[in-house]
Structure formats: C-alpha cells, structure tokens
C-alpha cells in the first residue's frame, strides 16, 4: 500500500539517535532532548488538527503528564518507565472527560475552553500543597544508571510516538478523522459516531502530550506551574506552522528550526517574543505550507527549469 512507504523523517530519526550518542552529556545532547520533546508536542497538536480542531488544552495535558511523573517518582517512587506510562495514561483519561464535554460544540468553543482549562490547571497546581504550590516540584531524576542514556531514550520515545501518530493518520482511522474535519454531516450519515472518534483522536494526542510532559520533567528534573501556561501551546503551534502543517515531517522540521534558533534568542529577553511572533506571522502569511512546502516548491521549480532547458537543447 503506497500509504505505508517509510517517511523521510524515519531516516532522520536514525541520524538523530546516532548524534545523541556522539554528543551525549554535552549541551548538544540537551538541545537534542528539547528538539525531540518539542517535535512530539507539535505532532500532538497537529494530530488534533486532523479533525479540524485547535487544541489549546495541550499545555494542560503536558502539565498533567509532568506532574503525574513528578508525583510518581518523588512520592510513590514508582519505577521510571511505569511513571512515564502513567503520566501518558493520566493525561489521556482526563482528556476523554474534557473532550466529551467540549468537543460537542468544537470549533472556537473548544479552542477557547482549552485556553481556559490551561489557565485553570495552572492555578490548581499553584494552590495544591503536595504539588509544591507555585515553587513546583524538585528532584524528578531518572535512575542514575540511566543518566548517559536519557538523551537517547527521550529521542527514541518521541520518534516512536510520532511514528505511531503517523501510522494512525495513514490508516483508516486517519481517513475518519480527516472526513470529520472535511464534512462531519456526511460522516454522520454513513453511521460513524463523530463525537466518539473526535474524543478518540483527542485522547491519543493527549497521551502523547502527557508523555512529552513526563519526559520534560525528567530532563529538567524540576517542574513549576509556570511551565504549563498557554505559551507552551503557542510555541507548539509555531513549530507546526513554520515547519508545515501538511505532514508530521513539517512538525519535526519546525521544532528543530525554532528550538535551535531560540538557543540563540535566550539573551534577547522581550526580543524572543518578537522573534517567535514574527516567525508565526511570516509562516502563516507567506509560506502557508511552511518549510516543507518551501522545499517541495523549490524542487518542482528546479525540475521545471531543468526540463525547459532540456527542451531548448
């Protein structure tokens, strides 16, 4: 089935894994971590875009994931892997409840309520004693013997989940999701329960978001309510749009591009906002298909010109 050809970024993934080993321990490794996590977030946000919804609650679910991981390791000392799994499951369970309420109306209502939910959760963490209130939680370490492998592990998990989302998108579930976005009435008339599938899509995406949160917690060792404000969703959005919404490769590309650049934007202060803002505006206005689109159009241009040359000869 043509659908199942290996996507370009799988090749990249191998490259990344090798790189992570080559640079492990150094600052580069931590950049790779942030890229991987950012890409996973972008992928999750984009996955919900398949049903035509913009999921601003993603920040909340990343937070839920991160805090579950924090509680699991620092209080219940649950094992590392289980902790990560738990956080994914927790996020996805809550998302089912949230989704089945808000996805009824969908569209702007879903979007704005997602925004409200993010803010609400942030306040909830900051008022909860066991979660360290506003100072957050510390000491979320992976097992010591794991230290050198963390980077590799993070990258593998992220790419694994991205690949999972890719497969689902290409499968017939993907067809259902896209058809809901395109024309939910028709989808309904052929016996498909639209709300059910919306929630399924949302829950899968939230699972990935939760895992991303857990990974972030283990990479930073520290989490605080402020980490999970709506800006997180905005940045994820920037990765998706700048990279190109049409493919998961775009999300990864965008994540690499912006994370790497933001490494240099750290010292900019307010400038960093200008930088991200400009990136989004430019991407949305002038390159609707993002970097991926740019790449492909350049190619077709090159091939065209070459063809015309050959004709002349």
């Amino acid at each position, binding site marked *: 089935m043509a659908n199942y050809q290996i996507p370009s970024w799988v090749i990249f993934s191998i490259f990344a894994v090798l790189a992570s080993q080559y640079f492990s321990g150094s600052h580069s490794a931590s950049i790779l971590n942030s890229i991987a996590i950012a890409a996973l977030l972008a992928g999750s946000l984009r996955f919900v875009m398949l049903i035509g919804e913009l999921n601003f609650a993603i920040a909340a679910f990343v937070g839920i994931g991160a805090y579950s991981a924090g509680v699991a390791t620092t209080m219940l000392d649950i094992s590392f892997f289980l902790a990560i799994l738990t956080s994914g499951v927790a996020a996805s369970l809550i998302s089912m409840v949230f989704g089945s309420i808000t996805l009824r109306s969908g569209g702007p209502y879903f979007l704005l309520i997602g925004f409200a939910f993010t803010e609400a959760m942030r306040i909830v963490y900051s008022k909860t004693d066991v979660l360290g209130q506003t*100072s957050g939680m510390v000491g979320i370490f992976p097992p010591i013997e794991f230290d050198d492998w963390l980077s590799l592990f993070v990258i593998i998990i992220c790419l694994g989940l991205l690949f999972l989302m890719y497969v689902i998108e290409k499968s017939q579930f993907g067809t259902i999701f896209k058809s809901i976005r395109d024309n939910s009435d028709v989808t309904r008339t052929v016996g498909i329960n639209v709300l059910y599938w919306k929630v399924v899509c949302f829950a899968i995406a939230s699972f990935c978001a939760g895992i991303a949160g857990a990974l972030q917690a283990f990479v930073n060792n*520290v989490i605080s309510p402020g980490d999970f404000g709506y800006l997180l969703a905005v940045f994820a959005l920037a990765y998706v749009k700048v990279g190109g919404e049409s493919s998961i490769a775009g999300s990864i590309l965008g994540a690499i591009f912006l994370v790497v650049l933001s490494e240099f934007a750290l*010292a900019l202060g307010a400038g960093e906002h200008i930088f991200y803002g400009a990136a989004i505006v430019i991407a949305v206005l002038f390159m609707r298909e993002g970097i991926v689109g740019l*790449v492909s159009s350049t190619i077709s241009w090159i091939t065209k010109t070459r063809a015309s040359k050959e004709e002349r000869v």
Partner: protein
Amino acid sequence: MKNLTNNKMQLLSNLTFSCLLTLGVAAGAVADESSKPIKVGLSVPMSGAAALWGQGADWMCKKASEEIRDSGGVVVDGTTYNYECITYDNKYNAAEGAKVARALLQREGVEFIGGSLGTAPVRALQSLSERMGVLIFTTAWGDQIKGPDYPLTFTQMNTPHEILEPLISYVSEAHPEAESVAILNPNDATGQQTEAVSTKAWGKVGLEVVSSDFYERGTTEYQPIALRLARHDPDVIDLGATPPAEAGAIFKELDVIGWDGVKLVEVGTGADGLTAIGGDSVEGVYMGAAVAFNGPSVTDHQKRVNEEAREDLGESLNTVQIGFYDSLFALKAAMEKSQSIEPKKVAEALPSVTFQSFYGNTARFGGEETYGSPQQMMLPVIVTRIEQGELVELGRINPTE
C-alpha cells in the same frame, strides 16, 4: 512526475534535517569550552511582569564588574581577572530556568552564577549547578533552597526570615493600639513564602490575623480584593509580597471604601510604582525591602549609581537588584582570600570573608540557626515609609549575632 518530486522532496528534506541538526549541535559544540575573563552568569526574568527586576539585576551586575575592573580587578596569585556578566531570560518558570541553566553551565561553561531570580527557575538551576560544582548566588527565598544539602548556594539579599520579624516588631511598637491584621499576597512562590513567615511574626507581636488571602497575577480589578481586606475592619493591612503597582491599586480602592489604618508592604521594593498608581492613598505605607536614596545615611556613591539606574531603567534601584551588585563583591573577596577561582574553594572561603556592601556597611555571611549553615548574606534591614509621596528611611536594624 509527481512521485519523482516526492522522492526528491524527501531527499532534500532529509538534507535540511541534517543541516539544521548539525547547526543545533554546533550551537552547543562550539561554545563548549570556557574563556579567560571570569564569566558570571545571571538567570533572571527579562520579559513578562517581572522584566524590570531582571533588567535592573543585569544593570547592577555590569555596574559592579565595572567598578571592580576600575579598582584593579580580582587578583588571584599574580593574575588579574575581571568579571563578565552573561544574562539570560528565565521567564520566571522552571522549564526556561532549566534551559538557561544548561546554556550557562554547559554551553558557556560558567562556573559562578552572580545571581538568580525566581524560586522555580532557581531550583532548576540548582539541580544542575550543585551536581556540576558551580557556585550560585540567588535571591530566591525558599528556606529549603539553601542549607547543608546545597553547599554551593548562597543567598544575596535579605529574605522574609531576616526582614519580617524586625520590621513587624518595629511597626507594632510604632502602633501599639493595633490589634488585628489582614494579609494579602500574590499567589506565587514569593507570596506564599512571605505569607508563611509573616503570619508567625504577627502572632509573635500579639496581633490577631483576621484574614490571609492570595490573588492571581494578572488580576485586572481590585475592588473585590479591597472589600474583602476591609471586611473585618482590621487595624493593619499587610500586602506582603504584592508588587508595588498592584499594592498601589489596592490601597487606592481601600481608600475609596473608606478604610484607614496602618499600611504595610513587607517586601515592597520601591516607592515609584506604588505612588504612581496609589497617589495619596499610599501615604504612610511601611516597606521592608526598599531603599531610600535621600536619607542622611545615604552615600554619594549610592546616590550617583541610583541616578544612573533611574535614567536607564525608569525606576529607583531596589534591594532585589542591589543583591546582584553585592554578590560580585562577595565573590571578589572570597576569591582573593582563597587565592583560587575554584568554585568549591571559593565557596569554602565565602562564609569567613567580609566585604563592602552597597548599603555602605561591611557585610558577611551567616544564618546558621535558620538554615543550618552560613549561606545567608547578612545585610541591614531598612525600614522605610512613604511620607508626602517620598520614600523616607525610618531606621536600620543591623544584623545581630
């Protein structure tokens, strides 16, 4: 044709991936080894609500390093070193704090953190710095942030533990008739820690705490808050760690609904924002973390620096920002005493040195009985009050022991 383009496109996007990635890796790799002049890292908010503090911190760090350079630099066995401030924006949250920490420690190879602002980001910084043997100064207030477990962490300004008891006892003596107090704090780390300490302190001096609330940053309307504060008509209203502008707005609303009594902003850092918003209603407000630059005890040096700061920042210097000046002089003293630029050795030397603080007196480190180890910069607590719209110093309680 279509497929052809597809394949080519995949190929090219692969190339792009690789290029970007190597670029990213290079970003780290290139900067991985450190350089000659001693780099001093700052992790502070440079954007958002607290941007002004970060900008001031950066300004003061640069100021101190200039002064040290002009006075002959830091001399450690023969060689002269100078400080170079590298300031990154930690956005007041842990995630960015961790990012900044990695950039400073791993990319820039910084071994000394001249100052760090915000509990969450500081903890993120700490979880890396202590492991990598990097000495850090911080304004963060959590009592669990320093102590024997964190031998390389030092606090660069007074915290509620130092300020509140002297301040509160001073105020209660000045107003013996006061019996009840209502407390309000912003719902953030500083606010929550201040609230914990201040409720105890008020209890000690025998005032009844009739209410203690929090409000969210980004609140737009303050009348409900004012109404609730005045509900039990307390003699004292204590706005704890409320930032100046918001404190001003709340006092204004209190004035409107006719409450009048003893006003207090325990860790109020400046009069400018307070008077700008509060107008006449902030007359008589006590503050514990502000510096008056007009009193008799003020040196010309302080006046001069403050004037320059006002021009660049638009507001007077406050104790938070001054901490970033003092930390550098403390560092200088410790390096020269230990004749080393080894973070561990310097850290061992720090508790035993004295140095000239911005406040004019000689300062040292202490605080064993509170924190279990001398990691707290011992500075005078300055009680200030707003009189005719001007900040006036009422007295200095110099560190005991």
